[in-house]
């Protein structure tokens, strides 16, 4: 990453300022808390899954722009999608952050989420970007909490 602007693009900054689907679902089928013990970031995820489709989901918590924007963009990407497709997104997102998937070359369904590929060059920030995705994965599996440790 030659310039932090490559990571801190307008879309990420805008989602950080005005996160989508922020809050907590009153009625939910899945719920998980995510924590990054190293930096103290926290996220609470509530989901309504019906007939294998993520009908609705919300997140709340606090953290840096990367974790907030990653959470916000994740909710917009996953909402209305089948759980199986969301799981593919989780895997592809992780692969992109690990650097094993290049969104400009390899087939993927990441769309806007490819904005986060700059994170792969910032090892100390990988956990920030991955936190909501790890939490989503935990929620699907019926686990109450996820930690990036």
């Amino acid at each position, binding site marked *: *990453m030659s*310039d*932090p*602007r490559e*990571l*801190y693009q307008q879309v990420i*900054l805008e989602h950080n*300022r005005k996160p989508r689907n922020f809050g907590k679902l009153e009625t939910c089928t899945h719920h998980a808390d995510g924590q990054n013990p*190293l*930096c*103290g*970031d926290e996220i609470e995820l509530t989901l309504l899954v019906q007939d294998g489709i993520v009908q609705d989901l919300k997140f709340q918590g*606090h*953290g*840096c*722009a*990367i974790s*907030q924007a990653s959470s916000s963009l994740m909710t917009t990407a996953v909402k209305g999608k089948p759980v199986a497709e969301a799981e593919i997104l989780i895997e592809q997102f992780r692969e992109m952050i690990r650097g094993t998937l290049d969104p400009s070359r390899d087939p993927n369904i990441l769309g806007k989420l490819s904005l986060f590929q700059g994170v792969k060059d*910032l090892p*100390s*920030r990988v956990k*920030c970007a991955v936190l909501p995705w790890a939490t989503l994965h935990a929620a699907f599996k019926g686990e109450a909490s996820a930690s990036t440790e």
Partner: protein
Amino acid sequence: MNQPLDIAKIREDFPILAMPYKDRRLVYVDSAVSGLMPKSVNERIAHYQAFEHTNVHRGVSQLSQEATDRFEEAREKARSFINASSIKQIIWTRGTTESINLVAQTFGRQKVHAGDEILLSAMEHHSNIVPWQLLAEERGAKIRVIPMTDAGELILDELDTLIGERTKLIGVTHVSNVLGTINPVKEIIARAHAKGVAVLVDGAQAVPHMAVDVQDLDADFYVFSGHKLMGPTGIGVLYGKKEHLEAMPPWQGGGSMILSVSWEKTTFIGSPGKFEAGTPPIAQAIGLGAAIDYLRGLGLDQVSAHGHELLAYATERVKGIPGLRIIGEAKAKASVLSFVIDGVHPHDVGTILDHEGIVVRAGHHCAQPVMKRLNIPATTRASFACFNDKDDVDALVEGILKVKEIFG
């Protein structure tokens, strides 16, 4: 009055400062997380490892005797550094954290029982909280907290009421790692002693910034780490009053700490050996001794004055930045500057500053109760040492302006 520090000359003692970082001048304003190591310390450690090393307190060889002498000379340097009356009061540990755990598990276990209280200040590092919580849990004791103001000063009005009949120990940091506050530990100790309560002082952030005299403070225990003092990691000091150390049981058991061992009964040597089971961190202790020599060579008063000057300059400069708020505005501060910026999380500040070649700490600083007390998730912290200059502060300010520009 001695001459002020020759910063340009001091910078030559730290090879890393001459190396480009992110294609520019490294601005290391993160000494509160760990000090950079001067060449002399590195060379001393390398020389020991190459030519002087064997185990200490063992064997009859000249090599072993000389290694022991170097190791014990370092202990004498640590003694003199904090003006302890005897080297028997200087116990080597892995660092501040281990020193506190040692006290909690020996002195603490002897003194603290069900219903007793341990009093800690609101601005402690986790290392001076968690060992006491573990002890309190084990003993059915309670932790109480000395409150602080929004500016980051301890509120001592109620100290005499907080110290109750059940208070068995007070733990307080000399200098807050987040806020920079220099606490009036001498006064706290005097008031605790008036009620017969012992005080452990966490000196990790104090010893790099000021001359410390444990006898003048009348501290029961004083603890610090080597690496915050420009020494190596894996070495620290526990100072204790003679009467406490004599009454305390051994901590870990093993070689080096015994008088005699039989299947029926083992007897132990006195302090410090009683608390130093096993082969100690020899090179690290000698390295710490060299770091103490380095700091004393510069002059602790000069180091302290330089830190204050940089802190005053940095405080003045960042104050003018809109949306920036300084966290920790105590009247007495060491050269630690924490801040938050409206709408920007400290981790993002840290990432952007790093890209500009500026190394700071961003996070909760292992002091989550301080963050909660001040209702902030984290701060960005710059901390200054003898090799920092006003150019470093100016670079920091430029970096903060870049953060603001990116975040709009």
